[in-house]
């Protein structure tokens, strides 16, 4: 009898241990799967966000208004039989388009590439606006353009804002000054885009009056893109937009962007 009780006891003990282990295992496994799923979902969401933002960036960069207005300006020279200018601008425009497509697929390019891209863009805008627009680009002599990198599709939309919202609505000619300066901190530099147009406050007002339901504003797209770059831990980017009318005797918009490239060790 004692033996039987003992057997039952052992049996129950083993049963409890087994059930305990199995349920622990199941709980643990479930939790692990849950965590894995969460992580996967998080990754997917992050990926999706990045893709959407890249798409938006591409859209904001290839502004159809810009494309068609440029072609329209080229049509003008064709009509006037100015063969050389027409050819020159057509090929310049084509080169710019090529760069748009190339760079939209890349994450970073050198400052040298970026600057030459921006100059091409400004040249095409000048074809349309002629004397109404002028620009200058200053690069600090201590900045190594060939070995300093910049994320693609950031500056051009900002520059386009200066042209379309700043200078466009201004009566008379406007100027855009871009400068690139090295900062004391490691791998850091600052880009300024300063125009003497109507200023971002006034431009916002005009836009509000002209269109009731505008789509995502380009500056929102830029902000979203910067957020994602900051999240990636590869860049630390700060930006600031100032309506210059806060200073006496000035007008226009100033955009300051500081880039810090955090290289992986």
């Amino acid at each position, binding site marked *: 009898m004692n033996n039987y009780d003992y057997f039952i006891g052992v049996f129950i003990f083993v049963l409890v241990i087994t059930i305990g282990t199995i349920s622990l295992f199941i709980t643990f496994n479930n939790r692990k799967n849950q965590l894995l799923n969460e992580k996967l979902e998080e990754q997917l969401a992050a990926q999706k966000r990045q893709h959407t933002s890249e798409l938006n960036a591409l859209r904001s960069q290839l502004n159809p208004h810009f494309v*068609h207005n440029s072609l329209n300006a080229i049509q003008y020279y064709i*009509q006037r039989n100015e063969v050389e200018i027409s050819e020159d601008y057509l090929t310049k425009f084509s080169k710019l388009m090529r760069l748009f497509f190339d760079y939209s697929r890349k994450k970073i390019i050198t400052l040298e590439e970026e600057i030459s891209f921006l100059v091409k863009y400004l040249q095409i805008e000048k074809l349309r606006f002629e004397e109404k627009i002028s620009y200058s680009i200053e690069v600090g002599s201590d900045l190594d353009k060939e070995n300093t990198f910049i994320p693609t599709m950031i500056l051009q939309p900002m520059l386009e804002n200066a042209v379309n919202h700043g200078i466009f609505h201004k*009566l008379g000619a406007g100027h855009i000054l871009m400068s690139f300066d090295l900062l004391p901190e490691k791998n850091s530099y600052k880009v300024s885009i300063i125009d003497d147009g109507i200023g971002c406050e006034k431009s916002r007002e005009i836009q509000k009056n002209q269109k009731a339901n505008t789509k995502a504003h380009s500056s929102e797209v830029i902000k979203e893109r910067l957020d994602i770059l900051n999240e990636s831990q590869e860049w630390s980017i700060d930006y600031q937009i100032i309506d210059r009318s806060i200073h006496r005797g000035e007008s226009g918009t100033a955009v300051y962007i500081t880039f810090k490239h955090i290289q992986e060790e």
Partner: protein
Amino acid sequence: MNIKTIIIDDEPKAIAILKNKISRFCTALDIVATIEKPQDAFDTINELNPDLVFIDIAMPGMSGFEVLKQFSNPNFEIIFATAFDQYALDAIKHCAIGYLVKPIDNEDLVEAVDNATRNIMDKNALEKNKILIENLGIQKFQKKKIVIPSTVGLEFVKVKSITHCEGVDGYTKIHFINGKPILSSHSIGHFKKLLDHKDFYHVHKSYIINMIFVERYLNDGYVILEGNTSIPVARAKRTTFLNQLKG
């Protein structure tokens, strides 16, 4: 017939392009003024009383629409021009007003001017322009009016009064919640573009319905609209249509 024409565009190049094209392809047009500053348009138009005005949309300080809004009786035919502005183009199309996209295609120009010439003889500019001005102040699509070219002239109807459009032998019959249908000489494709909004669903190759009038959906592929009209839903469209109904 000489058509007194004015061109408004802030870009001298755009004016030059249009003038050149007009001189080659639209000899009936007589350009009496070109205006670079949209702020000058009101006085010049009032002074010269043109039949036709080409108006650029995106201009510094004052858009083409804002130029139009200044007039209480804009009785001139308009052809708008824009490089790209979907919102503006939609608004213009709803009122059956002419438009051109830049760079301007010669054939498009000739067609727009032919239409404008016909409209000038029909004297329907004032009503179309007034509806455009009215629509610009309205956000909700259903509350806007649209202009329907019918077999007898232009009809001005509220979007929310249209229950459905029916394609019949290349024509389109527009049905309303109250009143008789209108027959338009345009195909159903024209109305698909005109009513390009989420409230209008192209359920079948011959039918576009206004979603606000949907009462129920029958599983054999028919949708019942207010007033007990039943409309077939094409097999390929049933799933997406149902999803939109569930919204």
